């Protein structure tokens, strides 16, 4: 057994190196290994994103363009017919992707900025700040969020800005809890102490030392949170206090065309019309969930990689 050197050398010690790949190569490899559900989820998201981004190019008519014939049936001219005041439903569906997804995304980002920031601060400082924030969050979470949102919206009015702010605030409580819980485990590590002893400020410790380590669960939560926000906005719109006309939005489209269902025995396609925006809502929820599931599995399933 004298073939291996017996003199000690730190550089040579242990050290079969992991194969280094560029970020892009790793991404390709991950995508290839992804389960079918994740691929479906990703394609749904890509499809919706394309719709939202290129809505004016794809939609045959304008978002609020009123055409002479209301309640037009499905035809070559209006693939999904027109609504009660003669707007092309397909066009509104496509613009709806832009509005509903855009507002939901903005709301989720805001919820993460508020909840994540406060959660990190609570985890680092502990003590009274943590107590105040955590108990405050408990109180807010004790009230059913949809009812709370309805109440606040009726007080502040249903503008897009107040919609975004109110839902973001309500949802940030859940983000706060998660961020605090995962950061508490990181805060006790020696490298955080090492950074404090070095004299680093709170901002650096939050951004550079903690955030990279809690990112995987937060990204997965972002996907799920987005779905909930999306559903909340759709429900509020369905109830009439969400996104206001003439802005196209799937939730209010379901409401506006809902009464068409009763004509099912005369024209089946008319009855399907209100189900299409509902289906669009369901599809994106499923797509985002599939993707978030895959990501959660990847970030928690360390065993698979070892």
């Amino acid at each position, binding site marked *: 057994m004298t073939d291996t050197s*017996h*003199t000690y050398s*730190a550089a040579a*010690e242990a050290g079969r190196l992991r194969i280094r790949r560029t970020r892009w190569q790793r991404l390709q490899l991950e995508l290839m290994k992804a389960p079918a559900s994740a691929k479906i989820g990703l394609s749904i998201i890509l499809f919706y994103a394309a719709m939202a981004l290129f809505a004016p190019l794809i939609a045959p008519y304008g978002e609020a363009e009123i055409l002479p014939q209301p309640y037009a049936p499905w035809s070559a001219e209006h693939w999904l017919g027109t609504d009660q005041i003669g707007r092309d439903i397909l066009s509104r569906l496509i613009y709806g992707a832009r509005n509903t997804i855009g507002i939901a995304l903005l709301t989720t980002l805001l919820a993460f900025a508020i909840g994540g920031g406060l959660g990190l601060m609570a985890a680092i400082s502990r003590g009274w700040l943590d107590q105040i924030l955590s108990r405050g969050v408990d109180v807010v979470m004790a009230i059913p969020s949809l009812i709370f949102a309805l109440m606040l919206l009726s007080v502040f009015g249903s503008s897009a800005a107040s919609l975004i702010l109110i839902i973001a605030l309500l949802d940030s409580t859940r983000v706060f809890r998660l961020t605090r819980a995962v950061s508490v485990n990181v805060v006790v590590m020696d*490298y955080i102490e090492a950074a404090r*002893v070095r004299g680093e400020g709170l901002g650096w410790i939050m951004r550079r030392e903690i955030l*990279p380590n809690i990112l995987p669960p937060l990204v997965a939560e972002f996907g799920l949170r987005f779905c909930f926000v999306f559903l909340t906005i759709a429900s509020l719109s369905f109830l009439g206090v969400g996104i206001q006309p003439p802005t196209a939005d799937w939730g209010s489209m379901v409401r506006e065309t809902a009464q068409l269902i009763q004509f099912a025995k005369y024209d089946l396609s008319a009855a399907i019309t209100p189900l299409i925006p509902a289906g669009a809502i369901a599809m994106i929820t499923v797509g985002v969930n599939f993707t978030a599931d895959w990501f959660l599995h990847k970030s928690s399933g360390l*065993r698979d990689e070892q």
Partner: protein
Amino acid sequence: MSSKTQDVLLEMRDVRIEGFSDEHWNPIVKGVDLTLHRGEVLGLIGESGAGKSTLGLAAMGFVRAGCRISGGSIRFGDTDLRTASEAEKRRLWGTRLTYVAQSAAASFNPAHRLITQTANAAIREGLFSASEARGAARGLYQAMSLPEPDQIGLRYPHQVSGGQLQRVMTAMAMLPQPDLIVFDEPTTALDVTTQAEVLLAMRRIVEQHNTAAIYITHDLAVVAQMADTIKVLRHGQEVEEAPARNMLSAPKEAYTRSLWSVRKLEKVTKPASETVLAVDSVDAAYGTVKVLDDVTIRLPRGRTVSIVGESGSGKSTTARVIMGLLPPRRGQVVFEGSALPPGLKGRSKQQLRRIQMIYQMADTAMNPRHTVGEIIRRPLEFYHGLTGAAAEARVLELLEQIELGADFYDRLPSELSGGQKQRVCIARALAAEPDVIICDEVTSALDQIVQEGILRLLMRLQKECGISYLFITHDIATVQAISDEIVVMHKGKVVEQGPKEEILSPPHPEYTRLLLTSVPEMDPDWLTRLAASREAGTNPATG
């Protein structure tokens, strides 16, 4: 069957084990033979990653998740453990084949009483009735010198100390009177004083019942006490095997000799110089629990002062007070003649820069998401304002200095071995260009051969840069290797303080004597002598 083969309890031939990583199977154990006779104790030693634990578990027919036995044969008595069904193996496990894990605290179920867990396997397999098993368990607790052997079994795992838990686990392994026990580093996590007690108890019981054992460790002095035969492993292959005494006195292979040489590292004491850092009659407490009581320590410039003591003696708390993490209740920390502000917030960047700390667990001391380059670069940027190419050049210089090199720049901590990680932590401390480095048990999580490398590096850096070290440790061999002065701490108080030679030679205060005699020596008769002297209550001759 001849009497010779009947005598053989376990026979492993050309055992090969593979682990799955990076999308293919990599060999961990590359064809090892192992024969164990009834009543024989085999010591399995080697650096981490040598395959010791994997081989030890394979001796029980067990492999960890993600591993597989890819070749060879394992015969235990009349059973072929490679082909035996899970049910057959489960009947052997916990009865004829038992296992003592490294971390007892992580191995007990916190929801059940100790005695229930001790007796469980024996009752399940019908070896004893419930009351017989409990009686036997109490007998073993007594044999393991556990306090209140009749009552201790009624406690839950969190209600006893780590050393006691380790002994309860050994009692659990002994209870069914097994043919073979596999001990996987059973004392590594214990204090020296507790370790000596546990070793004594384990050896006594193994001898009494003529049980065979495989003892896995990286501590040579410990294996010297326990084993009849020693097998050295490296990179999954056998280096050599010989009776313990022969192996200790005349190791054949160069690698084995290099393992032995670690303990021979010694530093010539330098005379004291002017004081750079002093802890001046400090009291400190966590809440209402007082942990430091009138502690005074003086660190001369360019020298190494070691603080020794068992866990809970206040060593690490002293370090926290110096670093400003725990403001003292009374007293002060004096740096170059002027008192430092007690808390971290009151200290200036320069004051922080000049005292750096290296942690015991290099794993948790480095952010797993930062590369080696980023880790070393940050103090350069933060304290010295170095950026861009200048910072990078300095990082490379530091990497050279810690004997790693430029290819480590882009690696993540998870891609480094234990010793390499600790070196990066040393480089991070060096980057600040400090006057004092506090080393908190920096080598105790490492293998001996790696320890030696780290200690040599620290000594070289002291010579080159004139850094002073405050070295916190519980390992006397390390103390001998590196220190100029020694401080002995016990229960938050300084027991003794002075030059190394003075502290290590008699006469000793009571606690220092206990600490020094508990450190295993390479002499295979050390434990026997210790047992005799503790029974007689006299002072053994220390080697």
